[in-house]
């Protein structure tokens, strides 16, 4: 059985007097123990909401969550707040996008690390400080004893993200959810942070759910990749399968819009036209149809189903891209 089994997860934002927004619409995927899984999509596709729903961190009011998120046999969506607080930070930990705003500006880094140790591992005083310094060292922060006394604003961007990672791995969680962990960082730092995450999950056997808009980020590390669009999974495949052949035009577009240094001179980027707001409601057809280069009339006949091939490759498209070159 998978470590985390997300099944038919839906999140609806329903504020009084406002139109309901279905941010996540029946998403399912698995994360096996020790495995790295990617959740990919543009801003607004529902990937962050998915992770927050799994963690139970969405606001209680005005939000309806349905479906299942089974972690180690326990449905997190039905678990009471107290048990969830025990699980969060200990068994399931999370890293966020913007390391500066994700750290408390008025609390020293040291306390922000030790408070996790105190809460979940019962460590106090010197022992906790020593362990915190050890953790900072492990995530590659030099001079950790001095850093413990410093405040977030005294650290560089990469250092802050390392500190956040140290807090997340403090209790050796079985699942780590990283929500765009490199988006706010310089390219050189991005690569370092990805390396660090890769090393950490390999050494500790932690499973990693990697949430990103950048297919390039997941290319090097994920075992399987799920692509979300407008709250639904539109493509899912093991990494090798997906990079050899992408069926959904959206995934093709995502990869086509990554700048590459080895691209032939004069080759232009092929951005996906339009924005994530130009969606069609799934009930009426494919939500991606208004932006799709491969659109046919059948696209708007009704909601497309997820079709699976023999290679565990699933795609939700009635007119899929069948050869890698079609897009070019």
């Amino acid at each position, binding site marked *: 059985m998978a470590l985390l089994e997300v099944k038919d997860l839906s999140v609806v934002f329903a504020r009084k007097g406002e139109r309901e927004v279905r941010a996540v619409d029946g998403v399912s995927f698995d994360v096996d123990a020790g495995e790295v899984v990617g959740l990919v999509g543009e801003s607004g596709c529902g990937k962050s909401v998915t992770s927050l729903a799994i*963690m139970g*961190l969405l606001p209680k009011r005005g939000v309806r969550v349905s479906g299942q998120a089974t972690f180690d046999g326990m449905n997190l969506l039905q678990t009471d707040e107290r048990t*969830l*607080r*025990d*699980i*969060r*930070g*200990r068994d399931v*930990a*999370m890293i*966020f996008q*913007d390391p500066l*705003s*994700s*750290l*408390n*500006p*008025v*609390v*020293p880094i040291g*306390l922000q690390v030790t*408070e*996790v140790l105190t*809460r*979940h591992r019962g460590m106090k005083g010197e022992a906790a400080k020593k362990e915190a310094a050890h953790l900072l060292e492990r995530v590659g922060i030099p001079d950790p004893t001095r850093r413990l006394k410093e*405040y977030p*604003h005294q650290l560089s961007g990469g250092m802050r993200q390392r500190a*956040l990672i140290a*807090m997340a791995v403090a209790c050796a969680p079985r699942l780590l959810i990283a929500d765009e962990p490199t988006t706010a960082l310089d390219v050189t730092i991005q690569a370092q942070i990805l390396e660090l995450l890769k090393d950490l999950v390999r050494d500790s056997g932690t499973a990693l759910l990697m949430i990103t808009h950048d297919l390039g980020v997941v290319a090097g590390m994920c075992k399987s990749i799920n692509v979300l669009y407008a709250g639904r999974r539109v493509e899912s495949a093991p990494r090798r399968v997906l990079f050899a052949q992408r069926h959904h035009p959206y995934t093709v577009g995502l990869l086509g819009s990554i700048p590459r240094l080895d691209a032939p001179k004069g080759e232009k980027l092929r951005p996906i036209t339009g924005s994530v707001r130009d969606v069609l409601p799934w009930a009426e057809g494919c939500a991606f149809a208004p932006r799709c280069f491969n659109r046919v009339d059948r696209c708007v006949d009704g909601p497309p189903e997820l079709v699976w091939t023999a290679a565990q490759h699933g795609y939700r498209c009635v007119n899929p891209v069948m050869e890698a070159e079609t897009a070019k």
Partner: protein
Amino acid sequence: MFRFIVRRLLQLIPTLFGLSLLLFVWLHRLPGGPETAILGERSTPELRARIREEMGLDQPIWVQYGRFMKRVLSGDLGTSIGTKRPVTTEFLERFPGTVELTITALIIAVGIGIPLGYIAARRRGTWIDQLSVGGALLGICIPVFFLGYIVKEVLAVNFGWFPTTGRQDVTIDATRVTGFFVLDGLLTREWDAAADAIMHLILPGIVLASIPLASIVRITRASVLEVVQEDYVRTAEAKGLTEQTVRSRHILRNAMLPVATTIGLLTGSLLSGAVLTETVFAFSGIGAFIVEAIDRRDYPVLMGFIMIVAVIYVLVNLLVDLSYSLIDPRVRVR
């Protein structure tokens, strides 16, 4: 830090000089003078002129101001025209009452205001929220003298739970050390005197707290509402910290900055005296005395009291500024 304090204290000098000049000219331009207060409306112009001459009020204003500054610089604030006692003595006698009242009001306002503002923010839109926001509005709107009389009539006169007026029961013969009645009672171990002084403070304290309480509730609520949306609060929740830790370490500590500013400003204004509250409870503080001095055109008292209050105001705000750097490490005091 040290240089910051010294610089702020040096800034006090031009501030005080400007204030004294402005205040002096302004007070002396008020129609009438102390001679009317002393002699009454029906006195003869000759008699009034003689008194003015005796007090040196017939001199040009810059001469009068020069004399005043010379006296002040030698540490003498002069003698009250009304009571014939040194201004410093009058001040030292009344200011402890004002300080005690201010502290009481602040304890009530902060002790109730911050928790209430926090709860209102966390239970936004519920009856608790509406009750505290509505109550805060009422606290600001209700006239102090009205609230004062109601509280006094009900709790002191009808139920007799609290004394109605004054700072200390006349039957208690307390030893005076500092002029702060509660402190005196504790220092001399006269527990009954201390307890009695506290009982005398509660009702005026509640009345005086009504407006500060309302401000603190509203500011705390707004500040907490802003902080709970911050990413670091989500991080704290994602770490599985207990609700208490998230609340005290991650929400309240960040939400306290604007609240500290408000408390500082409130403290300053409370220390300059609470005329209405003091009047309703016949409580001896500086507020009622200043109003009386305005009526009597008691120039030395007015000049002296207002200048001292200005110094205290500046000092309180200095303390508030210093407290920022304790709350927020990003604020560097230089």
